[in-house]
């Protein structure tokens, strides 16, 4: 049917029309050199088998559908949480186009970063000239308060020396001598985006705090959120600390950057941690990292160079938040106020309302290591049973920590922890040992389609659902959000599987 402007159909319905389905069939049969449908069906069934799983897990060289990115995005993410900071990526320019695009697609917000646009000549002679020019141009055009430099793999392979290049750029007059230009080498062939976060965080803190150590503590607590992409989380942390009366500094707070209001004018650098506060973080009482695997080098640096106490505390789920608040109370001497206890009670109340739908439900999860630990721990508290835990960028330390958590829970006995595996491995796990639901980022939707297993979207990126990133997952309030997403996904799915009138709608209950 030709279009009717009163009811224009786009790709969603247009290609279901018979003239298009005929076009597809004609193309397939006559021109594509396609495999016969029965052969496609046979192979499709085979990929669901144990035999396929064994072959799939025997892979040594091939990665298919990974669940990790490369370092510079983590570095950019860390940098963008500081006031007036422009990330400057030394190397090929295409990377920066991808990084900005990815972050913009997730947040539906602007994301600014510049590249030194290195090409063949820089590959031969090095990227010094690119940096000297790039520093001058970006400083003058975009008027940042700080430029945070990281690298693409091109600059790493040819061995660009950022420290020397930045000094050269300053000596060449591109930027003032006292202008802060922290840097981090972020090779894409080492670690993942969470490694880049750590490297840049360490780079920024060491730059800004240089010579700022005072004899007395400022009494504050530093919080490092890690590669946590929920803008609601830093806001929730601030609220909780405000209620407790704790004086704190969040080191890299991108919540306003990635959730700026629409007031009719574009602001290039909304919000962020004040540079003077970051500089004074060296004088804090203690630093609390809310993630472990995004901060090992940073914590080591703080411990050894600042001689400051560091802790890892994950304020997620009931126990995680309990432990966090208790530890912060001990560190600061501030009591945990009744308001937070009431919130805790509300979360526990909500859990007891919903637990029956979650208890004994088998689930699988993939994502970054700290996210997996936080979410899995919370679900264990509610009696859910993890089966497959897959962490593409997890290491042996993560595996041990995760296994200890599982061993400590009667609901964790069945779970197996997979590190350095990808989402094509995950597919085999889901087909051979199915679960009731799985948790992952938007890339998981292909697995949802293939396996029909209900999916709860938690992680980064979230491209195909709007506004999930705005919520908190942190603290008791964040726990309510996670609970809501999990239990209502299960109930939606139950309705979907009981909605055929007269056939399957016996259990299509109004009240659950």
């Amino acid at each position, binding site marked *: 049917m030709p*279009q*009717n*402007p009163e009811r*224009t159909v*786009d*790709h969603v319905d*247009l290609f279901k029309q018979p*003239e*298009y389905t005929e076009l597809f069939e004609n193309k397939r049969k006559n*021109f*594509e050199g*396609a*495999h016969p449908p029965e052969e*496609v069906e046979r*192979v499709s069934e085979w*990929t669901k088998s144990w035999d*396929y799983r064994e072959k799939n897990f025997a892979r040594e*060289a*091939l*990665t*298919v*559908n*990974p669940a990790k*990115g490369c370092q510079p995005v983590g570095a950019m993410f860390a940098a963008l949480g500081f006031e007036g900071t422009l990330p400057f990526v030394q190397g090929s*320019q*295409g990377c920066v*186009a991808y*990084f*900005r*695009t990815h972050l*913009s697609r997730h947040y*539906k*917000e*602007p994301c600014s970063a*510049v*590249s030194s*646009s*290195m*090409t*063949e000549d820089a590959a031969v002679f090095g990227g010094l000239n690119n940096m000297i*020019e*790039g520093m*001058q*141009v*970006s*400083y*003058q*055009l975009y008027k940042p308060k700080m430029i945070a430099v990281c690298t*693409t*793999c091109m600059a790493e*392979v040819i061995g660009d020396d950022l420290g020397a290049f930045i000094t050269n750029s300053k000596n060449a007059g591109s930027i003032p001598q006292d202008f802060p230009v922290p840097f981090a080498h972020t090779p894409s*062939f*080492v670690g993942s985006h969470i490694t880049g976060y750590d490297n840049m965080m360490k780079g920024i803190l060491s730059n800004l705090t240089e010579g700022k150590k005072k004899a007395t503590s400022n009494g504050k607590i530093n919080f490092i959120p890690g590669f946590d992409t929920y803008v609601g989380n830093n806001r929730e942390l601030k609220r909780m600390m405000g209620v407790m009366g704790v004086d704190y500094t969040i080191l890299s707070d991108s919540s306003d950057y990635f959730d*700026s209001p*629409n*007031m009719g004018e*574009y602001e290039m650098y909304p919000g962020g941690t004040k540079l003077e506060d970051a500089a004074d973080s060296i004088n804090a009482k203690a630093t609390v990292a809310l993630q472990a695997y995004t901060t090992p080098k940073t914590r080591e640096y703080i411990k050894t160079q600042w001689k400051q106490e560091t802790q890892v505390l994950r304020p997620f789920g009931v126990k995680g938040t309990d432990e966090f608040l208790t530890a912060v109370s001990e560190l600061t001497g501030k009591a945990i106020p009744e308001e937070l206890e009431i919130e805790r009670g509300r979360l526990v109340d909500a859990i007891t309302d919903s637990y029956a739908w979650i208890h004994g439900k088998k689930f699988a999860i993939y994502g970054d290591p700290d996210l997996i630990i936080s979410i899995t721990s919370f679900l264990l508290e509610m009696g859910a049973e993890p089966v497959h835990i897959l962490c593409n960028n997890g290491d042996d330390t993560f595996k041990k920590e995760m296994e200890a958590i599982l061993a400590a829970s009667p609901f964790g006995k069945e779970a197996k922890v997979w590190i350095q595996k990808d989402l*094509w491995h995950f*597919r085999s796990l889901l087909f051979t040992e199915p679960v009731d639901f799985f948790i992952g980022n938007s890339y998981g939707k*292909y697995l949802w389609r293939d396996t029909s297993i209900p999916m709860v979207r938690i992680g980064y990126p979230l491209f195909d659902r709007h506004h999930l990133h705005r919520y908190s997952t942190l603290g008791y309030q964040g726990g309510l959000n996670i609970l809501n997403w999990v239990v209502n996904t299960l109930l939606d799915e139950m309705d979907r599987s009981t909605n055929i009138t007269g056939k399957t709608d016996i259990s299509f209950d109004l009240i659950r």
Partner: protein
Amino acid sequence: MTPPENKNLVDENKELIQEVLKAYPEKSRKKREKHLNVHEENKSDCGVKSNIKSVPGVMTARGCAYAGSKGVVWGPIKDMIHISHGPVGCGYWSWSGRRNYYVGVTGINSFGTMHFTSDFQERDIVFGGDKKLTKLIEELDVLFPLNRGVSIQSECPIGLIGDDIEAVAKKTSKQIGKPVVPLRCEGFRGVSQSLGHHIANDAIRDWIFPEYDKLKKENRLDFEPSPYDVALIGDYNIGGDAWASRMLLEEMGLRVVAQWSGDGTLNELIQGPAAKLVLIHCYRSMNYICRSLEEQYGMPWMEFNFFGPTKIAASLREIAAKFDSKIQENAEKVIAKYTPVMNAVLDKYRPRLEGNTVMLYVGGLRPRHVVPAFEDLGIKVVGTGYEFAHNDDYKRTTHYIDNATIIYDDVTAYEFEEFVKAKKPDLIASGIKEKYVFQKMGLPFRQMHSWDYSGPYHGYDGFAIFARDMDLALNSPTWSLIGAPWKKAAAKAKAAA
């Protein structure tokens, strides 16, 4: 065309450009100056330089050769496996980013929305990745037996560490009995996506044409030729564009024997040279292979434009003119069939859109090809520019645009924002990196790379959707919500006083 008052507009816009350029340091200003201009009627090109290195630090929207080869040209070939060879990021950050629609069972006989990578580690950089690549190709042929072939898409390190991917391609191709195509599309090569297109085109010539020659020589081409065989080239089927175009070509009696590369297959790549005529939509990304087809097989090729009813009808007639009277009559029938629908679309939307202005900044063919579609709706283009054009693109642009249109090549974020602030267009049509900047300014915006998750926009079916989408952007009530009423009232009072 040009109203006399536009004489002043040319000068005014030239002054604007000079004003914007003042923000640059001198050396960089001199470089950028060559890429910005104002179109003056009767000039043979737009008066800008292009296809030159981006100035470091300016915030260019450009991508790289890998994006041009893997992302644009080869990625959409659905029954081949395209390896992002090198570190994990390039393929991960771009995974499923381009909406090249295809029909197929993903992971079984089609692989378009998947990400295959050699996930380079430090040891691969130090010791080289050829062995890993060989093993990887063996592994993927076991796990994905219905793949028709493999392409190796090089990321930056490959060319820097001296790997011999051509040797691996030849060896593994024999091993698995399928084409394995190596691409030297490292991101540092060239100045933008554009060189990646060229490299990708040349790989078709060097690694796929021989397959055609061999099959032809051995008389094994699975193909009954007809006088009406065409190849549809340079359409990546964003949101289904190529299908909406193919529909019209088939309706006029032509046989589309190959789609390059949206919803394309290896078989269509191989049998492309058997067509009688090449129809190319995106000239920028696939003109190279048209020239190769012409040189090697004597195939004629022609450009066309399927955006908006004016250009679609003109293009259908131009295409039909290459064939016999039967096809020419059919083309008239197709135009006649869709004219009432198009009139209904225009009757509905033109009154709602007429008199609006738009500024464009996209890549490929769109900075010129979509201009007539906007004009069909009464929307005037006041500025346009290309991410990665060459001089031939700017030459092809002059007859699409009006006097005094601002032209910006490889525009920087700073320049684009300043032009928009000065010219105050009603709509911006550009990409994701620009979208939220301008929406924060309260300006309606449509993504012109991904069709903002809508589409198709090609063909008659596509134009109805294009019109709907421009209307929903421009006439959305949401824009009027921006700004607190008390602030607006205060500003008004202040202005009155």
